[in-house]
C-alpha cells in the first residue's frame, strides 16, 4: 500500500468521544448572541463594494459580484461534499472504511479539467475591462496628483491652478491620541479635507500620479480605480463621474506611507461642467495668492 506502514491489530479507540460537547456549543453561541445584540445601534449595511458613479465602476462592481457568486456556487458543492462525507461516513454511526476506495483516474481528470474551464471563463471578461482601463484617450481634463507625507497636492495641468489638500482641522484635532473628542461628533471623521479636489461630471479625466517622498496611492472607491503614486515616476489612470451624479466622493491613501498614512484623505466634489468651468476660472484669478497661502 502506498505510503503505508501498518501497526499490529488496531485497538478500539477510547477517545472517539462525541465531537461537540453541548456545553461548549452553548457557550460560544452565547458569545455570538451578545455580539449580535450590537445590532441595536449598528450600521451593518456596509458589507459590499460600492457600485460607484461611473460606467467603469459599475462594471467592476458587477464583475466582482459575478466572481463572488461563482465562488459561492463552487463553495456550495465543495462544502456540501465535505459535510456529507463527515456525516454519512462517521464511525459513531457504524460506518466501515472501504479500503479499496483509493484512487480514480477519471475523477482526478474531471476535477482538474472542469476547474480550468471555469477559471478561463472567469478570466475572459476581465480582458475587455482591462483594455478599457488602459485606454486614456479622449480625455477632457488632466489632473496631476502628488502624494506627500501626509497630504495631497492637486494641479490642473495647463491652468496654473495648484493647491494642497490636507485632513480637515476638526478631524485632525479629534484623532490625536487622548484628544478627549468623540469621533462620532465629527462630521465625516477622517474623510474630510480643507480644500477638496473639484472635477466636472460627464468628462473623462486623466489623472497623473506621482509622489514627493515615499510611495502613496490614490483611491476613491466610488470611482472604481486605485493606482500607486511613486516618487520620481508618473503613473496614469482615468476616472469619470456620470453626468447625473454630481456630489461629494471620499477616499483615502492606499499605500503605507509612514505614521500618518491613515490621515491623508481624499475628497472630490463633482460639479456639472459649467459650474466646474466657473470654479476653475475663479481659482485661476485667485491662484497666485492661493499658492502663496498654502506654501
Amino acid at each position, binding site marked *: 500500500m502506498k*505510503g503505508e506502514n501498518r501497526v499490529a491489530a488496531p485497538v478500539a479507540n477510547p477517545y472517539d468521544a462525541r465531537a461537540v460537547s453541548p456545553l*461548549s456549543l452553548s457557550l460560544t453561541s452565547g458569545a455570538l448572541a451578545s455580539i449580535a445584540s450590537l445590532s441595536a445601534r449598528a450600521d*451593518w449595511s456596509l458589507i459590499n463594494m460600492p457600485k460607484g458613479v461611473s460606467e467603469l465602476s459599475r462594471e467592476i462592481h458587477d464583475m*466582482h459580484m459575478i466572481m*463572488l457568486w461563482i465562488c459561492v456556487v463552487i463553495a456550495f458543492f465543495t462544502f456540501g461534499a465535505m459535510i456529507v462525507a463527515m456525516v454519512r461516513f462517521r464511525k459513531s454511526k457504524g460506518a466501515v472504511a472501504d479500503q479499496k*476506495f483509493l484512487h480514480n483516474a477519471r475523477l482526478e481528470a474531471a476535477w482538474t479539467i472542469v476547474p480550468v474551464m471555469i477559471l478561463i471563463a472567469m478570466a475572459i471578461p476581465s480582458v475587455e475591462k*482591462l483594455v478599457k482601463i488602459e485606454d486614456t484617450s479622449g480625455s477632457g481634463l488632466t489632473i496631476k496628483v502628488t502624494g506627500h507625507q501626509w497630504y495631497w497636492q492637486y494641479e490642473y495641468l495647463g491652468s496654473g491652478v495648484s493647491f494642497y489638500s490636507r485632513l480637515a482641522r476638526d478631524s485632525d484635532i479629534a484623532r490625536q491620541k487622548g484628544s478627549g473628542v468623540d469621533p462620532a461628533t465629527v462630521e465625516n471623521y*477622517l474623510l474630510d479635507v480643507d480644500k477638496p479636489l473639484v472635477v466636472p461630471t460627464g468628462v473623462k479625466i486623466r489623472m497623473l500620479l506621482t509622489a514627493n517622498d515615499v510611495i502613496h496611492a490614490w483611491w476613491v472607491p466610488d470611482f472604481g480605480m486605485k493606482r500607486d503614486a511613486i516618487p520620481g515616476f508618473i503613473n496614469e489612470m482615468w476616472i469619470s463621474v456620470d453626468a447625473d451624479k454630481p456630489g461629494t466622493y471620499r477616499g483615502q491613501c492606499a499605500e503605507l506611507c509612514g505614521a500618518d498614512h491613515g490621515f491623508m484623505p481624499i475628497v472630490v466634489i463633482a460639479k456639472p461642467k459649467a459650474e466646474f468651468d466657473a470654479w476653475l476660472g475663479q481659482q485661476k484669478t485667485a491662484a497666485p495668492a492661493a499658492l502663496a497661502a498654502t506654501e
Partner: protein
Amino acid sequence: MAHASHDDHAHGRPAGIVRWLTTTNHKDIGTMYLVFSLLMFLIGGAFAFVIRSELFQPGLQLVDPAFFNQMTTMHALVMVFGAVMPATVGLANWMIPMQIGAADMALPRMNLFSFWLLAFAFLLLLSTFLMPGGAPASGWTLYPPLVLQSGEAFPLAIFAIHLMGASSIMGAINVIVTIVNMRAPGMTLLKMPLFSWSWLITAYLLIAVMPVFAGAVTMLLTDYFFATSFFNAAGGGDPVLFQHVFWFFGHPEVYIMILPAFGIVSEIIPTFSRKPIFGYEAMVYAIASIAFLSFIVWAHHMFTVGMPLAGQLFFTLSTMLIAVPTGVKIFNWTATMWRGSVSFEPPMLFALAFLFLFTIGGFSGLMLAIVPADFQYHDTYFVVAHFHYVLVPGSVFGLMAAVYYWLPKWTGHMYDMRLAKWHFWLSAVFVNVLFFPQHFLGLAGMPRRIPDYAAQFADWNMVSSIGAFGFGLAQLLFVWLIIQCVRGGERATAGVWDWPHGLEWTVPSPAPYHTFGKSPEVH
C-alpha cells in the same frame, strides 16, 4: 523530560541547559524549534492584541500612529519568520527522520546551528523596540523609499533577516539531503509519507527564494548606507524594482508556510477516516505543481504599480491557475473521508476546520486574482481577510493539528481531550468572528495599515476585535494543555490512535531518544 535524564547520565550526555546548547539530536532540536515558535506565537499575538485593541473603536486611544505601524510590521515579521516557519521546521526535525526510518537528520551539527542562529536573529529583531525610533514600521514588506526612513533599527532588522534566511537555507539543505539519502531500504519516494513529501518540496522553495530575499534587503542596506540607487529615482533607480525582487521571494514564501500544513492534513485525515489518502500520486503532483506555479505569480501583489496590460493578464491567469492543483488537494481530502469511517478527535477537528476555512481563503484569493476587481481590493482589509484565512485557519490550524496528532508520540502521554475540544471550538468560532468581517470592511472601503478609521467602519471593527480577544484568550488553553501533557497524563501506546499509519507509530511513546538506529523493513 524526567525519564530522559537517566539516559543522559548513563550515556555521558550533559543535562540541564548545556544539553540544549549542544544537542544534535533531531528530537531535541525539533522540541527547541517548537517551543521557540510557541513563544513567538504568543509574542506576535500580543502585537495583534495591541492592534485590535486600538482598532476596537474609532479614535486613537492607546498608541501613537508610529507605534501602531511598528506593531503591524513586527506582528507580521514575528508570525511569519518566528512562529509559522520555525514550527514547520520543528515538525520536520521531529518527524521526517521517524517517517522515513532514519536515525537522525543528515547534518546534525548544522541542524543545531540553524536553530541557535534563528534564536539569536530574533533577539536582535525584538531588541529594536528598545532603540531610538523603535522597531521597523514600514510593513513587513519593507518597501522603499519608506523603509529607508527607518531609524537605528534598520541595520539590525536587515541583519536579523540575513541570519533568519541563513538558518532557513541550512535547514532546507538538511531536509533535502536527509530525504534523498537516508530513507529506509524499500521506501521509494512514492511510498514516502505526504508530510515528508511536502517538506521535500518546501525545502527546494526555501533554497530558491531565501537568497533572493537576502539580495533584496542587501540592496536596501547599500541604498541606505553606501549611496547606491537601486530604489532611488534620483540616481536612476526605481522603488518598484524592490517590489519585484521582494515578491519574487514573497510569493513562494507564503507557499513555504502552507505546504507543510498540506502535508500534515494529508497525514491526519487518513488516520481518522481509517483509510489511506485518496489519490496519493495526484497529491504529490499537486504539491509539486503548486510549488512550480508559485514562482510565476509574484506580481499579483503589485497590480496597482502601473503594470503593462500584458503583465496584468499574465499574472491574473497564472494566479488563477494555482487554484487547480489546490482544488485537486481539497477534493482528494474530501474523497479520503468518503466511504471511510470518520471520527473527530482534536487533530481531525483542526484538520477539518482547515479544510473548510482554508478553502474560504482560497476563494477570496481567486477574487483577488482578477485584475479590474483587484483595483478595488488592493491594500484594503479584503486582502487582510484573505491572507489571514489562509494563514490562521490555514497554516496555524494545520500546525495545531500536528501538535495534537503527534504530542502523545513526543511525550508519551495523552492530553486532556475535553480541554483540547474546548480549545478547538473557541478557536474555530472566534477565528471567524475575527476575520470574516474584515472582508466586509475591505469591500466597504477600509484601507490596510491604518490605526484609526471613519465612522462607517466602526461596527465591523468592533466585532473583529471581539473575535481577536476571544481567539487570543483561547490560545492560553493550548499552552496550558501542552504544559500539562508534557508533565504527565494517561500513558500513550505506540500506535496512539485507532488507525495509525507510518513508521513513527511503530516505535514506543514517548519515542526513544534514538530511533531507527537499525533501518526498519518497509514493504
